[in-house]
């Protein structure tokens, strides 16, 4: 550490100490100057708005008639619990999460293992090409997949037809829309793949060598060494994905033009928030929905961090 212990004052203010204090003041001054953009931004665009959202959530604020704003207590929150659309949006979001998270993780892990394999010819090209689909802007991806999944000319059903299966109407079925969304999600696994790959490459070779001497086969090594050692990366990605699903909006909006169709099957929580706040102009109620979202995300993150000690392995733990 560059800064010495501050809690042990010397009896006399020696010139050296004065100089040291001056240096420290300089350090502090420049430090604050440099981080000030973030501090200001955090106050203006994060902290105050979060608090303001809480305040708004106790009002009936409507941007069309801002003068009629009144404090209505916890009515917005009571309404949330009775609103069938809120229940539906939670159901949609959770359904998607339960389907998308395991599949995405298994697929991402397989992709990472594949591009990590010593037997893969042209590793680097495969990494780049697999990552490339993550660069496709979400609206373009939505438009493309809506085409691929259509029942007339879409390639999914044409391919199914070629092997004798009549494909479903993916975009208009309350059941098949979810597998479609999960498939689309596979296009965005680039970051997951790359970070897992880096985790795998970080596993020290000696551990593998030692296990080979012990007679472990490939699968055992994968299960007992690779997976436990990349749990920190899995944890990082799991956290981001879970938060991402509760913010899931763009793809649902693009595929069904923000209608939530079919039969509210794409009415994700964030879409319901958007419709209330910006289509129906119920910004007071929208603020309550936003706080609901914030609390859900906080609780889920807290749960994940709490569960961490049970399954995430940090190599540096012993060092303290």
């Amino acid at each position, binding site marked *: 550490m560059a800064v010495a212990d501050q809690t042990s004052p010397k009896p006399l203010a020696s010139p050296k100490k004065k100089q040291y204090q001056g240096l420290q003041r300089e350090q502090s001054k420049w430090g604050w100057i*440099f981080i000030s953009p973030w501090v200001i931004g955090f106050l203006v665009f994060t902290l105050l708005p979060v608090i303001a959202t809480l305040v708004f959530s106790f009002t009936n604020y409507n941007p069309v008639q801002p003068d009629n704003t009144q404090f209505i207590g916890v009515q917005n929150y009571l309404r949330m619990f009775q609103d069938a659309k809120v229940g539906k949006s939670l159901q949609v979001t959770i359904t998607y999460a339960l389907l998308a998270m395991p599949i995405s993780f298994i697929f991402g892990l397989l992709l990472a293992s594949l591009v990590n394999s010593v037997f893969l010819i042209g590793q680097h090209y495969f990494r780049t090409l697999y990552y490339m689909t993550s660069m496709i802007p979400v609206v373009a991806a*939505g438009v493309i997949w809506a085409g691929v999944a259509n029942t007339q000319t*879409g390639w999914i059903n044409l391919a199914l037809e070629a092997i004798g299966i009549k494909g479903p109407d993916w975009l208009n079925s309350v059941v098949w829309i979810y597998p479609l969304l999960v498939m689309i999600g596979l296009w965005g696994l680039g970051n997951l793949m790359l970070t897992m790959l880096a985790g795998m490459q970080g596993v020290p070779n000696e551990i593998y060598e030692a296990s080979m001497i012990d007679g472990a086969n490939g699968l055992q090594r994968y299960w007992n060494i690779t997976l436990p050692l990349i749990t920190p990366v899995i944890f990082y990605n799991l956290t981001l994905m879970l938060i991402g699903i509760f913010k899931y909006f763009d793809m649902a909006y693009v595929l069904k033009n923000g209608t939530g169709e079919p039969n509210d099957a794409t009415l994700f929580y964030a879409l319901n928030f958007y419709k209330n706040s910006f289509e129906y102009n119920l910004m007071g109620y929208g603020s309550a929905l936003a706080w609901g979202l914030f609390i859900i995300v906080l609780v889920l993150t807290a749960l994940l961090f709490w569960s961490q000690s049970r399954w995430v392995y940090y190599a540096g733990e012993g060092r303290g």
Partner: protein
Amino acid sequence: MASIASNPKSTANQREILNKVFITSIALFVLLFFMAPLGYMFTTAIKSDSQMSDPDAPPWWPHSPDTFTYQGEELPLLEVPLEDGTRELAIVNKTRTESTFIDPQNPEAGEIQWEGNWRTLTPVYSPDAQWQNFRTAWEELNVPLLLRNTLIIAVFGTIGAVGSSVFVAYGFARFNFRGKNVLFMILIASIILPIQATLIPTFILFSRIGWTNTFLPLIVPHYFANAYNVFLLRQYFLQIPRELDEAAMIDGANPLRTLISVIIPQSVPALTAVSLFHFFFAWNDFFAPLVYLVARPELWPLSVGLQKFNALYGRQPNLIQTGALITLVIPVVIFFVAQRVFMQGIVFTGVEK
């Protein structure tokens, strides 16, 4: 020479080759699935309008029905089953019970009679790419305008995001002050905050000061640094030896001077990665432009423009795919050019703790 199979070394070699073939085939197979939607996009983008609405047309590839010009008239070609096998003939006269045809190979031979309903016959198609779809989509989507808007938002946002994050990261990496660790924790924790939790008051603020329906809400907030960029840059700055700063300080450089003359030149890869992150983020962003610009089509970026075009022109799937191709080509090309630096940046943010 001993037989090859009994030589243990060459069996190992053979196994390795087999493994390579096996793994690489799997990878190619997966790649096929990844790329197939792009194949759909590309082939649909160059299909004709009539093919899109023609249920008989071959679905996979751009095709047009063939015609034959006979006596100044364009006649459609149909597959006609005759006694001597199926022939491709141009239809001259059609009725429900019998039709007359002409053989395009040999028009002088005269008309051929065929009994049956001509509607049951399949038209003859041949591959035909409609390259002018790009021009049509370019004009109908008003791509120059959308592109200009997207570039303004992306470029000015990137300047702010990178500039401010460099400052903040430098502050966190090189200076000691009270509360630094707590502030850094808050910065990192802000990653989990959903944008919805701040959106309504921010929207009201921007609308009070007249910023809604302008680019400002999409640009200005990025001039106050963000957690991902600061995190990546700080990690990078920490790796630069302090001796370099100290040497500059001894030469009389103040911290700002040191940042510009020592730190920044040492951090080109990290700065490139962060710039790309924001540029792609801005190019991709759909939610914020939708919220702030929905009422002003002349300010829409590509993302909103393409979505609205899709919602409006649902009956022209070919032009929509052309629009998607136009929207994705710039980020994808930049990615291929800069992939090494970009992918290192992703790993750096994700793995370093």
